[in-house]
Every structure is written in C-alpha cells, then in structure tokens.
C-alpha cells in the first residue's frame, strides 16, 4: 500500500502540476486544488497508464477518495 501511495503522490503531482501535493487516504476532490470532474479524467488515465490497469465503470463510480483509489489499485494488482 505504501508503494502505491508514493506512486500515486507522483501521479497527483504531475496531473495537478503541484510538486507540493501530499496524500492521505481520507482526502477527496475537495481537498486537492484543481481536482474536479474534468481533471478527474486525466487522473484516471494517468493511473491506468502508470499501473497498467483499467477501471470498470462501476469502480469509477465508487472512487470518492484517495483511499478508494489505493484500494482498487491494490486489488487489481493482486489479480
């Protein structure tokens, strides 16, 4: 999980153009400057490219926080 979080931090920093971004599991779009429904698509694409995974529509609908993202990535990596 720790590795996924550190990789996610790098992705967030790249997508939102802010090298100061740090993440915690409870963080949501309201806590990250620029994380809105349009930039969310960039975030998802960046995560899919980086981890070589694809989110299903159902999984996408359930992603509300950083913790949710980490859990889904973890489950897909295990598979």
């Amino acid at each position: 999980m720790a590795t996924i979080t550190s990789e996610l931090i790098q992705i967030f920093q790249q997508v939102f153009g802010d090298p100061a971004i740090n993440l915690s599991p409870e963080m949501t779009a309201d806590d990250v400057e620029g994380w809105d429904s349009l930039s969310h698509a960039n975030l998802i694409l960046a995560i899919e490219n980086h981890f070589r995974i694809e989110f299903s529509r159902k999984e996408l609908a359930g992603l509300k926080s950083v913790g949710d993202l980490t859990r889904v990535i973890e489950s897909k990596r295990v598979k």
Partner: protein
Amino acid sequence: MATQAEQHNIGYLCTRHQINLGLGTKTALRWISSSLERTSYSFTDLEEQSNRVANLLLSLHCRESDPIFIFLPKMPEQFFLVLGILKIKAITCVLFPNFGPEALLDRMADAKPVCVITRKSLLKRVLDIQPEIPSIRQILVVDIDEHQSPDVLSYRKLIQQSSSEFEVPLTAEQTPSVLHYTSGSTGKPKGVLHIHRSVATQKQTMIEVLGVKEEDIYWCTADLGWVTGISYGVIGPWALGITQVQYGGGFDARTWMTILEQEGVNVWYTAPTALRMMRLEDKSLYSSFNIPRLRSIFSVGEPLNPEVIHWAENHLHRTIYDTWFQTETGSILIANRSGQVVKPGSMGTPIQGLEVQIMGEDGSILPTGERGNLCIQPGWPSMFVDYLNHTDIYASKFRFGYYFTGDTAYCDPDGYYWFTGRSDDVINTAGHLISPFEIESGLIEVEEIVEAGVIGAPDEILYEKVVAYIRLKKDVAWTKDLELKIRIHIGNRLSSIAIPQEFRIVEFVPKNKSGKIMRRVLKAWYLGIDAGDLSTMEE
C-alpha cells in the same frame, strides 16, 4: 452620512444598509463546509468582516479603480473580500481556482492588478507569473500566519490588525465595480467591466424572475468566478437582505440533496450540467429526501434540455425554470418563471422594461419564427460598460442601436425566445465560454503536435464538449501516454475546463487561403455532414 438615494455602493447596500433596515442579526450567509459543518454569518458579521478588508486594502495603498484579484476556492473570505474591495471603490475580479499559469497571465497582464489574494496551495501559480506582472505590489495569502516576504503577506495577520469600522465613501452609480473575463473566438480573454448601478437589475430579477421572498433560504451554486456567482451569489441576495446558503465542496448529488433538505432551501439556482449529472443518478436517491420547502429551481449557463425538465418534474416534483444571461448583461434578461407557461427548451420571455429583437446582419428586424442575432436595446442598469483595454471591440458589439449578444435565436408567436447557437466559434462547455483559439495555442506548444483545430461538439452532460483535431509530427504515433501528456498540459496551463474530451488525429487541419482555421469544416467532419463551400480552403 450619505443618504440611500446618493449611495450606490454595492458593498454598502449589501451590509450597512441591511443593518440600517433592522436586519443586523439576521443570517446573511450559512456557510456549509465540504465536511457539511455549518457556520452562520449575520449581516453585522458581513459588515464587520468586509470593513476589515476595506481598511486592510487601504493600509496597503489600494485605491479607487485599482483592480484587485481574488484567486481562491469558494470560502467565506471570498465573500468578505468581494464586499470589502467594492467598499473602497476598487474593482473586484474573482478567478476560478482551476486556472493555470497561462490563464492567470492572460487576465493579469490585461488588468494589471495591484494586489492578489490567494492561498498557500495556489501561491506557486501566482509567484510563477509575478515577474511578468510588475503592477502586483502585494500577494495576500489567507492561510499563512506570518509574512513570507515584503510582498507575500499573511492576510490572517493583517486582517486581525484591521478595524471593523469603515465609512463607505459616497459612490456614484457609474463607478466601476466588478471585472469578469470572458472568451471570444479569437485573441485573449476580454475583461467585462461592470459598474455599481448593476445592483438595480440584479435586485429586480431576484424578485421578478427568481421570486425570492424576505424569509426565504436561497442557494446559488455558482462559483464567484462566474458572473452568476457574483450577481446572484453575492449582490442580488444580500442587496435584498436574503439569507443564502453557500457550500464549499464540489458536486455530489447526494450531498447537494442533503443540503437542500437540511437547510430548507426555498429557491435554488444552479447549472444545467449539475442537473444533467443528477439525472444520471439512481432514481431512488431522490425519493429518500424530503424537500417540501423547495419552491423553485432555476438554471443558467447553457440551454437546458427538455428531458432534464421532465426528469425534475417526475423525480423532484418541481419545474426547472431556465434563465438566460451573459457575462456582459450582468443579470438575467430572458427567463422562464413561475406564473407563466413553461415551454421546455425555450429561454422564456424578457424581463420587464427590456426590449429584445431578433435582427439580421443588416440591422433589419426579423419576423416571428425567423432565426437571427439576439439583440437587446441598451440601457438596462446591469449592462457592461467596457471590455477593459478593448473599447474598440466593445463598440463593435453595438450596432443599429442594439447590443448584439453573439447568440442566435428566434422568437415564437407567444413571445418566447429559443436559443439556436452562437454566431461565433466560442465553445460553451458546462456553462464556461472557452475560446478555441486559446486551446489551439496551448496544443501546439506540445512538441509532438504540428497543428491543431478545436471545436465544440454536442454533449449530453456538458452541452458542448471540446474536440481537438490534431496533426502530429511525422513518425509520431498516437498513444495513451501522448494523450495524457496533452491533457495534462492543457489542464495545467489553461484550466480543466479547456481539456479536450476527444481527440481526432488528422492528416491536415483545414485552413482558408489566409491561414485561418476553418472550424465549420471540422464541425461538419465531426457531425458527418456536408462541409459546404470549400472554395476558400487551402490546397
């Protein structure tokens, strides 16, 4: 002391004037944080907080007519700042927090602000462009406790030292008040300048269209970076002494329904994109909420699809009234409203005292049912008074004694107006007007792209989505990584709303013989229809 008849200052009318009317203890703002914690501010609190802002700005030598920029996400300080800036007769300009450096630079280089108020997480974006904006004397940061440098100052520290007493100078109705930037089809965004007189139409339409009553709880969801946010999320409600709800989080259907229910909202003014997204939610969500106090729902930003109106009638058991206005008009001018038949999909009818015509390019007034330019006879109080530094373009909007809105429409036999499109290439995505030129300029900064043409295409949620036609350099392949690189570049450089939702890779971007991108051809390609006359297209 100034009499009310002489005092047109919006900051005064929204605060001290309400206290004088006996509303000092009435709640002006119910602030709902993103974690749904509520903080209430009375009109006296608004008065004192905005007075502190006014005194703070004066101590920094900000003066009448100085542009002052607010670059913050929605938070209570934003509201105090807007009112405080207006109180010293300076010009307030609120920027969307998702703006990147290029979008900031375009606006600041044009307006030359003397002061920018931001917060820690956005500070770097301002500092990155500060060397190119020498007019900026101070940057105030709302969430640092100590001054960071001689010109990066702690707002928190300074505001605590500022007095809550302030006598608002007598303000003539022609005094500049608010600046909003809007995009055209060419060139940089233009600064739409308003004056304190605007409050008259904003108050009129709060009553005539939105039907707001003295004891109502009112909620306008617009960001203050939008004209709707300032006109109907600050000026309109508070100049009438109305209690309003403001929420600090983003869109979430369940959360928004919770706010409507818990706060007992009576009148709700929101955006079609949000309503369309709500429509996609499971229908059972809406039956689990009880919203008996909600009297009316209004929408603004782009035309509302009839399906959304029907959905609201079935699941929220309310009619949605669509309204029309522009950054330039400053307030609602054409609207559906309670008490008149709603024709789903129409803009509604003009407000009282306004003369609207559908006109041809030659100034002729077109007959009922014929599509043409939507034009308004100038003179309504909230009409803009200039495009900052572009008076020539401002003047070009007024022809044959009418303001040409840039929208096309027709009028039906019952006097209802129906929006049919734009007369230029400006893209309306989720209520934001975006210039295709700005996005094209951003795209060709990506080294793999040779040329780009951008259009707006129909979209179920956004009304229009940004579609980019791009020609790649020889031997460059289109990959997911390249798409991501381009999307991030546009998102961070301009703003998230400018990110293309779809890319089409082409062998060439159609241009005319003078090199102008032929966006109508791109639109025809996208829609799979005949592109029409191609005689002017470059071989």
